[in-house]
């Protein structure tokens, strides 16, 4: 194996500085936001001291907490449904072969390709036309659609990476189909399911545009609430709640990443 990075032949001028600037560009806003969330000053323009107070204010704001609760309800329901349908679809797509599989894959990836604003418009029109009242239910359905590819892709990748001989070996050793699934397929698929479910959960927590369109009154999720706050102006509360959302997302991705790594 070639040792990378050490050979001067691979050094091209400007590459390393650009990379450094890019990483700074990626993380500067995140750090600034988190730093501001600890700023004592009400006006949030100048630094006057360190405080946790704004987090207290956020956690004691009943509207924010209600929005957060809605977000959690939506994200858990959508994650559950999206992951479940992704698991069985993944099993079918990798353990069976038939004409039209490419087409099925294209359909499964569709929510990733169609611009979010278009999905939002179409979904809103659909719910209004079929006469479904906008609320938590419509948000959950819309999120489930959007989350399916995020759950499906890691699960399918895991299934594809699995040696089909393992399932044959189980059958060869007298395990019936159900026990083969429970004792061999499922334990090996587990990391894929977990990482797919986590990604679906974060995506649901973060999705704004679709939610904004189909939420209706009373189903405000955290991103929709934050959007409303931002439009009113920059306040320490926005900083604190935004920083909280960032940290939750980062924690989840890190966890999902670590799970994927340990089990490889």
């Amino acid at each position, binding site marked *: 194996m070639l040792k990378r990075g050490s050979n001067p032949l691979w050094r091209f001028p400007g590459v390393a500085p650009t*990379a450094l600037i890019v990483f700074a560009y990626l993380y500067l806003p995140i750090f600034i936001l988190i730093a501001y969330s600890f700023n004592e000053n009400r006006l949030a323009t100048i630094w006057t001291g360190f405080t946790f107070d704004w987090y207290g204010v956020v956690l004691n704001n009943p509207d924010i907490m209600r929005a957060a609760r809605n977000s959690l309800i939506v994200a858990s329901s959508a994650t559950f449904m999206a992951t479940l349908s992704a698991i069985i679809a993944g099993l079918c797509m990798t353990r069976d072969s038939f004409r039209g599989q490419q087409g099925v894959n294209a359909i499964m990836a569709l*929510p990733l390709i169609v611009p979010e604003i278009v999905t939002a418009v179409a979904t809103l*029109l659909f719910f209004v036309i079929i006469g479904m009242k906008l609320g938590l239910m419509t948000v959950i359905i819309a999120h489930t659609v959007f989350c399916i590819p995020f759950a499906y892709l890691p699960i399918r990748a895991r299934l594809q990476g699995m040696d089909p001989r393992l399932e044959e070996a189980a059958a060869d050793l007298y395990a019936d*189909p159900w026990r083969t*699934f429970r004792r061999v397929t499922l334990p090996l698929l587990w990391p894929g399911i977990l990482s797919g479910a986590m990604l679906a959960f974060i995506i649901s927590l*973060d999705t704004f545009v679709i939610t904004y369109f189909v939420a209706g009154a009373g189903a405000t999720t955290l991103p929709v609430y*934050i959007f409303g706050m*931002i439009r009113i102006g*920059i306040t320490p509360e926005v900083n604190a709640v935004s920083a909280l959302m960032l940290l939750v997302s980062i924690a989840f991705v890190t966890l999902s990443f670590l799970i994927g*790594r340990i089990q490889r």
Partner: protein
Amino acid sequence: MLEGLGRNRFLRRGLLLGPALFVIGFFMILPLFLMAYVSILERGLAGGVQWGQHTLEAYVRFLFERDLMDNLVVNIDYLRIFGRSFALAFGTMIVALAIGLPTAFYMALQPARWRNLLIFLVTIPFWTNLLVRNYAWILLLRDSGLVNSGLIWLGLTDEPVRLLYTPFAVGVGLTYSFLPFMILPIYASLEKLDLRLVEAAYDLGANKWKALTRIVLPLALPGIAAGSILVFIPALGAYVTPELLGGSRQLMIGNLIQGQFGAARNWPFGAALAFVLLAIVLCSMMLYLLRFRRAPGQG
């Protein structure tokens, strides 16, 4: 394990694929067709649509407006918004490529341990809330923000420069939002690159520039193409970034569409705009697939 779910293969496939395909088919594909249909309906007097009354008014309205005499007069307002969206999306793509390519190249040259960490670092911003990330740029770009403070401190300007609510702010925000989409595919194609090929090029008398342009870039092309399309498509349909960083003067297609369902209450026009955006996106996707991939879902 699948034969346990019934002898009939078709029934089995139906049962397993059914839920996912039903959810996407019924709640996404059907609504998209419905949206296309709504775009040719007469607009309702108080919002909504008038069923059974078909018209191409929504598409005519895109280019023309009616004057007092009810004559059609060319109106380029909407065209200008489309043009601005294209320019911003294209500019975003170019800037993302210009800074993303060296970054991906740098990542691909690091030792394996570091590479995984760097990928992770590039992925994190992607998984964090888009709204929050764009909001962070308001903090940075506003008159009293960090960027302006920096410029004043350096003595480059006395007065804060107007950065927020300009095309520049929107461009910065869009690039920031979608840069990981550019870096990751390019990295994926560069990571597979056998460095001995570059050595072979040196061995055959190529200098650094030649090795880069004749070996590295051609081999990274699939990644560059994938990254470009992955940045261009969401940038074109962006809503959050122009809304937060562009203000009312830097509208993009996304904001125009949203407006039809908000204040303007012109559903057919909103549906038509969304349909046009979808068509553009699907066409660019097709072009990309035809040129760079044999079939979707492969490679």
